[in-house]
């Protein structure tokens, strides 16, 4: 980002650009996901039209909803731990912003370029658990408490398969830097065929499936939405929230879905890149400058595909029970991802 589009930018300019870029990278996908998937796709799957009044085909519905939430009274229960109650939604949203910081959008278009980007991403993604647990505990509501505890148990159980699924990618790419992982996929080849590069969704398919299931659980989307469970816990840890604070939880839910889909597309679908063989590129340095503009669009497209998968499953499946979910995580996902790591390591040494 020091020389974005061949223009030298001073440090303060870079900082402003990063903050604005971070807001865009979180809120734009969140809004798009809510409109395209939650409002429209879900409605079409359920043989109804969805919002049609606000704007053409209801496209301004989200703004109407935000306006409604902003007008609502900010209710806090009498017995609530007020300071923690107010802090919780912000912590949940904060983890989303921290997460988007490592997603690369182009050869030079990134916010931060950590050497241990994968490690960082997996670490900050669990901060949202703290926010959820705080919300559940401080609400002074039994349903919220049950929801918060369920969320904590579930998110901890699903951190492990997620980490182990990503291990395969790290072994194959030989780096934890997300930028390098993107290059390794697009510059790579499968048995000498480099027409599609080497997207790890093909070679690490088991890892991809385990990662997406873990993401589904991490996002508390159905079939793993026990912490929210509107038919039994009446929205769990969100029960006591209203108005602006509920809006933050709501944005956080869908923004995190988008950011996790971006991370998954970076790890498994080749991120911002197209297969380098199409344009005769070989390394990072030979990538054309226009990829800085095309890259974000490519990431966005791949994100929409993966979010479609997440939402499709969310709208179709019933909910697991908490103990069934734990059993699934510990008895199926973790052994499968461990086996995946072993096979990957053996093949890595063999080839």
């Amino acid at each position: 980002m020091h020389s974005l589009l061949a223009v030298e930018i001073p440090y303060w300019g870079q900082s402003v650009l990063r903050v604005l870029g971070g807001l865009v990278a979180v809120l734009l996908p969140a809004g798009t996901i809510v409109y395209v998937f939650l409002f429209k796709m879900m409605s079409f799957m359920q043989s109804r039209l969805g919002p049609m009044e606000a704007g053409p085909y209801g496209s301004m519905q989200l703004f109407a909803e935000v306006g409604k939430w902003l007008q609502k009274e900010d209710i806090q229960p009498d017995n609530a731990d007020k300071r923690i109650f107010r802090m919780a939604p912000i912590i949940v949203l904060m983890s989303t912003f921290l997460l988007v910081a490592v997603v690369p959008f182009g050869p030079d278009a990134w916010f931060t370029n950590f050497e241990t980007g994968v490690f960082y991403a997996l670490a900050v993604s669990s901060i949202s658990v703290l926010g959820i647990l705080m919300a559940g505990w401080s609400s002074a509501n039994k349903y919220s408490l049950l929801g918060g505890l369920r969320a904590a148990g579930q998110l901890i159980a699903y951190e492990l398969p997620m980490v182990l699924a990503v291990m395969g990618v790290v072994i194959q790419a030989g780096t934890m830097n997300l930028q390098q992982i993107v290059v390794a996929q697009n510059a790579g080849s499968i048995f000498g065929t480099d027409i599609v590069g080497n997207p790890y969704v093909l070679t690490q398919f088991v890892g991809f499936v385990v990662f997406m299931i873990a993401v589904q659980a991490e996002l508390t989307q159905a079939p793993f939405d026990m912490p929210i469970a509107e038919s039994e816990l009446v929205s769990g840890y969100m029960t006591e929230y209203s108005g602006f604070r509920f809006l933050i939880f709501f944005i956080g839910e869908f923004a995190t879905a988008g950011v996790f889909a971006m991370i998954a597309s970076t790890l498994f679908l080749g991120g911002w890149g197209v297969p380098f063989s199409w344009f005769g590129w070989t390394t990072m340095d030979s990538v054309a400058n226009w990829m800085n503009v095309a890259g974000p669009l490519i990431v966005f497209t791949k994100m929409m595909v993966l979010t479609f998968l997440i939402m499709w499953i969310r709208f179709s499946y019933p909910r697991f029970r908490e103990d069934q979910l734990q059993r699934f995580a510990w008895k199926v996902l973790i052994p499968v991802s461990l086996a995946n790591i072993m096979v990957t390591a053996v093949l890595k040494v063999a080839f």
Partner: protein
Amino acid sequence: MTILNDPVNAKLGDRAQLSYIASQAADARLNVELETEGMTLNIGPQHPATHGTLRIIARLDGEQVLWAEPSCGYMHRGYEKLTEVRSFPQVTSLINRIDWLGSFANEVPFILAAEKLMGVEAPPRAQWIRTILFELSRIANVSLFLGDLGVQLGAITPVFMAFRDREYVLNLIESATGGRFHPNFDRIGGLKDDLPAGWIDETKVVMKKLRNFCDEIESLLFGNEIFQSRTRGIGVIPRDVAMQYGLSGANLRASGVDWDLRRDQESPMAWNKVDFKVWTHPDGDSFARCWVRLQETREATKIVDQLLDGIPAGPVMAKVPKIIKVPEGEAWVSTENPLGEMGYYVVSRGDSGPFRVKIRSASFNNISITPWLLRGVYVPDIITILASLYFILGDIDR
């Protein structure tokens, strides 16, 4: 937890549950060692899983239920008392609202009881149309259950399909009776009106749509592994316990008791004119209850089809006096309603209105088993079990 202390003298039905509780005893021992505190959770009166205002008081240890007690009466409307100050024809508009999803089926047993007291019999055409509307209200009721089941278990899509296809049935009921939810169409000695023109052909088309809906729900919900793992083996009611608690309808048949009032009792209605199968299931768990209801919806569409083919000609109203005075006497009539056995014990002292009416509604007995059934289950299973027992609050509280 008395049965844990005294497993030898436990009642027969308790033994089946004993193994379930014993399998989770390790959890309980851990909790004793850690000295964890219990928690009393009030599920309801306002809760999305209680279809109205039922309150379940559950004592929890973690997520496990130690004991649970249903507390009903939050929506008691005093229909038994209200009928005493109304004339016989006026009562139907009240009792329509007992099971509000299958309203027409509520009117039938009361009108049959009144007819029994007066000694009049409705003409055959009226009986056939009554039976058709009865089965249509069963379809409207149970198809909503099939969709609602998905919502209770976290799948949000099936309920919209249920609402979509139930609408066709409600339109049929509306075009025949004038009321979508509360027809108030049954009269002593017959029906208010004959069927409108073209209604029979339209109904046949809709019955085909409803059979498609059943196939759709079966493949979307019943074939789903998560759905099966959530319902199979959850809330098992053994055969003898189901009979002890006076369950009826699909809840009883799912426990393997082959008992259906449509087939097993003499009735002026037209059920004995058609050929239908009474479905039972040996398991008695939540899945069995849902499955039996699905098959019943299918069977009801077939009953309607057969009745439409053989509907006799003639008047729809017998000769009854303008001002109805019911002679002194007592009568008990019950029918197989969508939720189970529903009956009216009507006492008349020769006035224009009943002296006393006792309403036996199915849901009240069906939820009486919940304290026995909810011991030892997890909180999400409370919702599964309540959903599969399928009660309507108006039917509990009357």
